[in-house]
């Protein structure tokens, strides 16, 4: 993907060229492109005089940063203890089947990235699914379909 140098410069300037704010810069870039393009990591690090490997360490450490393009929406299927007991594995399977991707993968139309998490802290609603910032409680196979449809319709 082409990365826009001027935009990257703006991002760096927004954080006052402060290298301790690298993570914030990366998050902004991630939001913009829905991933961290390699060129962007290299460019920002070089501008800030940080070894590229430090940027790469950071990019591979935080789950919110991704080196490959991600879908427009992220579906988090909770696999924490409570959700697990309430049938989360079946929910994950249903998503995998309906979206035709494996956990961690992104659909071909770039609409969804499927992830699992361990406990979102709303165990009373188990099994829980979070799409972007929205929670869906007591999910079953039918509601999996409805959730996917809801976001597809929104397009």
């Amino acid at each position: 993907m082409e990365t826009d140098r001027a935009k990257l410069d703006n991002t760096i300037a927004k954080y006052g060229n402060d290298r301790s704010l690298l993570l914030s810069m990366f998050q902004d870039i991630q939001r913009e492109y829905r991933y961290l393009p390699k060129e962007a990591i290299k460019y920002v690090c070089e501008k800030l005089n940080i070894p590229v490997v430090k940027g790469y360490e950071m990019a591979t450490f935080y789950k919110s940063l991704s080196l490959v393009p991600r879908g427009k929406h992220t579906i988090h299927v909770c696999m924490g203890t409570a959700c697990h007991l309430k049938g989360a594995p079946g929910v994950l399977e249903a998503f995998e089947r309906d979206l035709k991707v494996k956990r961690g993968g992104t659909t071909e139309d770039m609409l969804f990235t499927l992830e699992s998490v361990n406990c979102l802290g709303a165990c009373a609603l188990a099994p829980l699914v979070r799409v972007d910032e929205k929670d869906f409680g007591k999910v079953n196979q039918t509601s999996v379909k409805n959730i996917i449809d809801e976001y597809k319709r929104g397009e």
Partner: protein
Amino acid sequence: MVKFKIDNKVVEAKEGEYLLDVARRYGFSIPTLCHHEALGSDGRCRVCVVEVKTRWRKRIVTSCLFPVSKDIEEVYTASEDVKLVRRTVLELLLARCPESDVIRYMAAKYGITEPRYKKDTDKGKCILCNMCVRTCENIVGVSAIGIIGKGPEKKISPPFREASDACIGCGACVAVCPTGHIFMEDKDGIRLIWRKRFELAVCPKCGRYHAPVEQLEFISKKTNVPMEELLVCTNCR
């Protein structure tokens, strides 16, 4: 200065000094895998554990990073608890790196020949001591490699798992690695390391391949010593 006992021998140390340094000064032997005089401590391997007794309690600490204080009364370098913890650490390391003869040898000293844990097959001999990374960053000064990823997937690698512009092919990481994990090969005037190929310089006096051209260029730039001088190998200089 404070006084306390290590294995019943009275020792003296400055407050804030690390226990490992004090113990070694007095000739006690404590195994380490991630400590190096030139690099200092990083607290990664945990084989350097000792037991510290204060007025209030006893506990196991990593000696390479534990500062001496007035509270310390006694230190044990080989008590039953120390041996138990060290044995467990080595057993875990052996499960991670079953191919490492260094780890195998150390573990055997604590009676471990086969770990009870599931053995890894994808870690090679790397125990993630971080010494290669610290050497590359602090001694060589190029930061070509780092600890990439997290959790069980963590590994040492150059950025993007490909040949790095920063790497000068010096091989300092290979020299410092306690387990011999890092692959480096010199063949037909080419050095291969970290997925990068380096042309080796030929000494004009003895005709021997001796160092990557890129490394010599790096040194030349840093020290202002002209390339012609650096191209002569250290034996002929």
